[in-house]
């Protein structure tokens, strides 16, 4: 193992254990698990980024700065179909201007049509890496991501009704900790079997028709609990079943894009960019399935989600589903969010009766 290279990818939900597996077992470099996001992270990020850039940029930048301070020297950024495309280059520029020295693996620069370009860029992470090793680590990484998504989905739907509090969360945290010490496919399989069984055997006391809420929004804000002020946890504590489909499995690994376009066709004839079509399709699905309410979160100024919001308003009118809209910037107060959530919960409760 190369001791000199310490790679880091910004904090994103619970996926850091999957990325760790890929980098340590595939690329053969050390992986720095990014420290959990705190107020300090976002302060660092927003101090050094442009004013009205979308909030995920500030989180990513803050994460990168913290990682660099902790000794990381190889950073990376993914690409997407919105402003995310330009995250990498601007982040690199800002960090270099701040005086840091590091390698930057920017996926937006790769020309995916040419194998040579892919290879050259992968070598930025580790010049002595072997592509075979990366390829052999990939299935397990995907497996880990899928398991995490599966577990989180189950937890989201049931954690509000568990008999002994915090039992599920403890099991999930233990699973993640064990995953951080996994180095082979066999170990992972064993862990998966063991912990899924543990999770499913947790005692729950679920009423026949609990309040169900759909959770939709833009890619980062929906998935990273800190950036949406732990709305999911708040809802779970109120005893609500939370539905959410936006995760890596549903969007990239088993892309349901064609299905999504078909569902959202009635409201959005074309591709309206990034994850907006997913948002529309999910909200429509929840409305048709008779969920009690939908919560829509987005970061400030997210162009595709603003356009989706117009459509969501129509869905709300057509299907008589209440939708609560949140727009998060780096300075939204937690109390305001809580108050609005409580009012929404009271309204749902009254409606149910």
């Amino acid at each position, binding site marked *: 193992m190369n001791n000199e290279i310490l790679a880091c990818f910004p904090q994103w939900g619970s996926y850091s254990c999957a990325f760790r597996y890929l980098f340590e077992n595939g690329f053969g470099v050390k992986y720095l698990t990014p420290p959990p996001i705190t107020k300090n992270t976002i302060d660092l990020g927003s101090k050094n980024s442009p004013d009205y850039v979308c909030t995920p940029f500030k989180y990513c930048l803050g994460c990168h700065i913290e990682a660099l301070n902790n000794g990381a020297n190889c950073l990376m950024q993914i*690409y997407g179909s919105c402003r995310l495309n330009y995250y990498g280059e*601007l982040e690199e520029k800002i960090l270099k201007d701040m005086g840091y020295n590091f390698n930057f693996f920017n996926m937006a620069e790769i020309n995916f049509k040419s194998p040579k370009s892919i290879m050259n860029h992968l070598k930025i992470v580790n010049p002595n890496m072997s592509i075979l090793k990366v390829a052999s680590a990939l299935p397990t990484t995907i497996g880990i991501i899928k398991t995490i998504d599966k577990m989180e989905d189950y937890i989201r739907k049931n954690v509000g009704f568990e008999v002994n509090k915090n039992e599920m969360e403890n099991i999930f945290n233990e699973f993640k900790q064990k995953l951080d010490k996994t180095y082979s496919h066999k170990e992972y399989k064993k862990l998966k079997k063991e912990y899924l069984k543990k999770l499913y055997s947790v005692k729950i006391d679920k009423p026949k028709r609990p309040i169900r809420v759909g959770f939709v929004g833009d890619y980062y804000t929906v998935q990273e609990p800190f950036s949406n002020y732990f709305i999911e946890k708040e809802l779970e504590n109120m005893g609500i079943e939370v539905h959410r489909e936006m995760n890596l499995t549903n969007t990239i690994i088993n892309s349901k894009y064609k299905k999504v376009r078909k569902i959202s066709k009635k409201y959005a004839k074309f591709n309206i960019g990034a994850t907006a079509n997913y948002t529309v399709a999910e909200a429509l699905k929840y409305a048709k399935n008779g969920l009690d309410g939908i919560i829509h979160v987005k970061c400030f100024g997210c162009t595709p989600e603003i356009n989706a919001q117009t459509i969501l308003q129509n869905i709300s009118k057509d299907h008589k589903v209440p939708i609560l809209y949140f727009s998060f910037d780096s300075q939204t107060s937690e109390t305001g969010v809580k108050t609005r959530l409580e009012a929404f919960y009271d309204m749902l409760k009254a409606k149910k009766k």
Partner: protein
Amino acid sequence: MKIGIPRALLYYKNEKLWTKFFDELGIDYIISPETNKEIIDNGSKYAIDETCLPIKIFLGHIDYLKDKCDYIFIPRIEYALNSETCLNFRAQYDLVKNTFRNYNLKILFYNDYGHKKPREFRAFYKLCKYLKIKKSLGKYAYRIAKQTQFYYEMFRSETQENVIKNSKKIKVLVLAHAYNVGDKYVGEPILNMLKKLDVEPIIAEYLDAKKCIKTSFKVTKTLPWAYNRHLVGALELYKDLVDGVILVTTYPCGPDSMCNEMIIRQYRDVPILSLTIDAQDATAGIETRLESFVDILNFKRNGRNE
């Protein structure tokens, strides 16, 4: 049949192409008037408050046109010169359809998407099919319209270059999107103020697009937006020939928020003024900032001459 063309967003990019195309086909059309306060106020009513100003203006124009014509012309353009456009241009159609759902608007559109080569013509061909116009007629009209647009752009860029070469006044490069700089409410007051201060504004948007976009790859590798590439390339090409640069941005423009930061970080030695325009009327603040910026440019130039 009467077609309404909103004087907003992509109209400023393709005005001759669209109007000439309908002229050649003998289709009657109206263009909404120049933006005024009423249009912006009406647009803001329909828009979600976080929407950017150009989209609010656009919705205001649609509101003006909604009962004055049979069809409203809203094309959807995904790619321009092999780069992406802002996501708002992709969502225009659905945005209008959903916002004005109760008015039963009929929308005429062409959908310029994908990477296959004669994209724009393919899109216009489908438009002709929808209008039940013969393909040959449509092709003829498109060619003439395209040529008109081409010569119009060439004329614009040559005039701008002439000004750069010959003018002895202080020259300022205005980096703003076509729909901002051409708009009577957003861009024109700034240009007028500059002219009043005896400064020659050079509009980057009117310079040759292909040349600019080609140059922009030297500056930034992964900038995804074609219209921003145009501006960055213009800055790279003409930065030594002008005295200063003004970035005109509408609040909260997505692409500009990142691109402007890059420009400011990349060109440390060029005097840059960044102006953000909101839906408010007060121009006194902008005027003051422009005056002080021009003063600095004046000092800089005189210092150089002595």
